[in-house]
C-alpha cells in the first residue's frame, strides 16, 4: 500500500462542504419539521463525519482492514444501543395477566405465612 498524498485543493473542497453542512444543520434547527428535525440533524452529522473520515483521515485510500475496523466499532456501538433501547422501550409493554401485580405495588400489611 503506497502512502497516499492528497492534493491540497481536495482538503479545501471538503472543508468548504463541511462549513456548508454546518450552516445547514444550524439553520434547519429553526424550521419546524416535527420529528424529522432529529433525523435530518443526524443525517447531516453522518455526512460530515463521513467527509472527515474518508478524506481528512484518508479512509478512502486506506486498506480494507481499516474500514472493517471502523465499521465494526460502529456496528458494535449499534448493538449496545439497540439491545439497551430494546429493554427500555419494552418495559411496560407486558400487561400482567391473571391478576398478577408487580411486587412493588403489593401492600405489605398482609404477607402470607411462610411454609
Amino acid at each position, binding site marked *: 500500500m503506497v502512502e497516499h498524498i492528497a492534493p491540497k485543493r481536495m482538503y479545501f473542497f471538503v472543508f468548504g462542504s463541511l462549513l456548508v453542512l454546518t450552516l445547514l444543520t444550524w439553520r434547519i434547527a429553526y424550521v419546524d419539521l416535527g420529528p424529522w428535525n432529529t433525523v435530518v440533524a443526524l443525517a447531516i452529522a453522518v455526512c460530515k463525519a463521513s467527509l472527515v473520515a474518508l478524506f481528512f483521515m484518508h479512509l478512502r485510500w486506506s486498506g480494507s482492514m481499516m474500514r472493517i475496523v471502523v465499521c465494526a466499532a460502529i456496528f*458494535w456501538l449499534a448493538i449496545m444501543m439497540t*439491545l439497551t433501547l*430494546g*429493554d*427500555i422501550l*419494552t418495559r411496560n409493554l*407486558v400487561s400482567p395477566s391473571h391478576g398478577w401485580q408487580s411486587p412493588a405495588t403489593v401492600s405489605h400489611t398482609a404477607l402470607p405465612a411462610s411454609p
Partner: protein
Amino acid sequence: MSSPEVELPIESRVHYLNVDYGIKSWLLTTDHKRIGLMYLVSITFFFCFGGVAAILMRLNLLEPQGLLVEPETYNKLFSMHGIIMVFFFMIPSIPAVLGNFLIPMMIGARDVAFPRLNLLSWYVFMTGGMLTLYAVIAGGVDTGWTFYTPLSTAYTNTHVMAAAAGVFIAGFSSILTGMNFVVTIHKMRAPGLSWFRLPLFIWAMYATSIIFILGTPVIAITLALIGLERWFHVGIFDPALGGDPILFQHMFWFYSHPAVYVMILPSMGVVSELISAFSKKKIFGYHFIAFSSIAIAAIGFLVWGHHMFVSGQSLYAGLVFSALSFAVAIPSAVKVFNWTATLYKGSISYEAPMLYALGFIGLFTIGGLTGLYLATLAIDQHVHDTYFVVAHFHYIMVGGAVMGYLGGIHYWWPKISGRLYPDGWARVAAIIIFVGFNLTFFPQFILGYLGMPRRYAVYPPEFHTLNVISTAGASILGLGYIIPLIYLTWSMRYGPEAGPNPWHATGLEWTTASPPPPHNFEETPVVTEEPYSYDRLAEEIQVA
C-alpha cells in the same frame, strides 16, 4: 524441523534471559518475552491477594453464623476477591503472560508490532493494580465486583473511587495489549504463514483481542461515570433525576459478559494446542475451532442481559437475551466435540499439561451446561444470586480457564525457562487441584439449588454440611496451587535442560532454542506446511 545450533547447552548461548542483567534491563525492556514474565510475576502476586480473600470467606462460612468476620467485612472480602481475581488475575492471565510470550514466536516474528506500548501496558497494569490494592488496604470496597448503583454511587462509604480508578486504569492495559496483538497477527506473520496455517492459540488470542478492543472502553466509561457521580454528584444513574440504575447494569455487563469470554477463549486456545500435542495427532476440525473462537467473541457481545433477568429489565429483552445465550453455547460445544474427536485414536500421553487439558474439557463442559440452566428464564428466577451461579462461573473460570492456564504454563515452561520441571510432582499437583476444585464447587451447585444466596456472610443451619465440604475442598485446592509455585521455581535453577522441543510438538515456537534468543529466531522461518502436521513429524522421527 529444528536446526543443529539450537541444541547447544544453555550457558554457552546468548538468550533473552542472559543477554542483559540488572533491574533496568527488565524494567526498561521492550522484549515481549521479558514483558510476559513480568506479567507472570505480577498476576501471581495479585492471585495471592485474591486467594487470601477467598480463604477468609470460606473460613467464615464454616459456621452458619459466620465464624470469622462481621457481615460488613464479609462484603468487602467477596468484593475484593472478585475485583482482584477478575481484573488482575483472570483477564490478564493467559493473554498477558502466554500471549505476550508466544504470539510473536508462533508467527515467526521478532517481537510484537509495538514493543514500547507493550511495556507501557505492563506499567499501566501495575498502576491500576497498586491503586486497587490501596483501596483494599485503606478498608476495601463492599459493592461486589459489579459496582451496582445506587449502592456504589450514593449509599456506600467504602473506597469505591480508588477501586474503580484502579480497574479503569488497568483496562487501558487490556486495550493496549489487544491492539498490539491484532496488528501483530495481521501484519507480522512469517512468509508462508497464511491465516489457516496459524496455530489455534493464535486464533483464540485474536478473538480475545477483538473483545479487549470493543468491550473494555465501555467499562472504562461506566466506571468513570460512577466516579463522577460519587465525586461531583452528576448522577446519570440517579433515580431522583430520572436516571435508571438498570442503565448502569446494561453498560457494566456489556463489557463484563464479553470479559468472561476473554477469560475462557485463550484457555480454549491453549487446550487446542495441548490436546493435539499430547495425542500426537492433528487437531480435528481446525476450521471449526478457528471460526468458533470468532463466533464466541461476536455472539458473546449479544448476551449480556442474562445477568439482568430479575433486575427489572423488560421481559421481552429477557426473552431475546435468553435465546441469544443459548446460541453462544453452540460454538463452545463445537470445540468440545472437536477436541474429543482429536483424542479418538490418538497416541495419548498423560503428562501434566495433558491432565490439565483433560480436566478442562470435563469441568468446562459442566460449567457450560449449567450456564444453559441459568440462561433459561424460568430456572434463573429461582437460582439467580444463589450459589448455583457461583458454582457455574467457578467451574468455567477455575475448572476451565485456570486449568488451561496452568496447563499452558507447564507446556511452555521448557521454552520459557529452558528447563524441565519434575512431571511427577506436576501430575500430583494437577490431581490435587482437580479433586480440591470439585470438592469446593460441586456442593455449591446443590447449595444454590436449595436456595442459599450468594454474597451472604451467614446462612441457615441446614446448609452447614455442604459449606463445610466446600471449605475443606478449598483448602485442598489452595495446597494444589502452592505445589507448582515450588517446583517451577526450583526447576529454573535445578531442572534438567529442555532442549528446543522436549514434547516433540509442532509449531514455530518449538523450532527455536529454549530459552529463545532475544530476537526469537536466528533467521526468519518460512512456513510451508499445515499446522499440527503430526503425521509428517511421526514419519520424520521414524526415519531419524
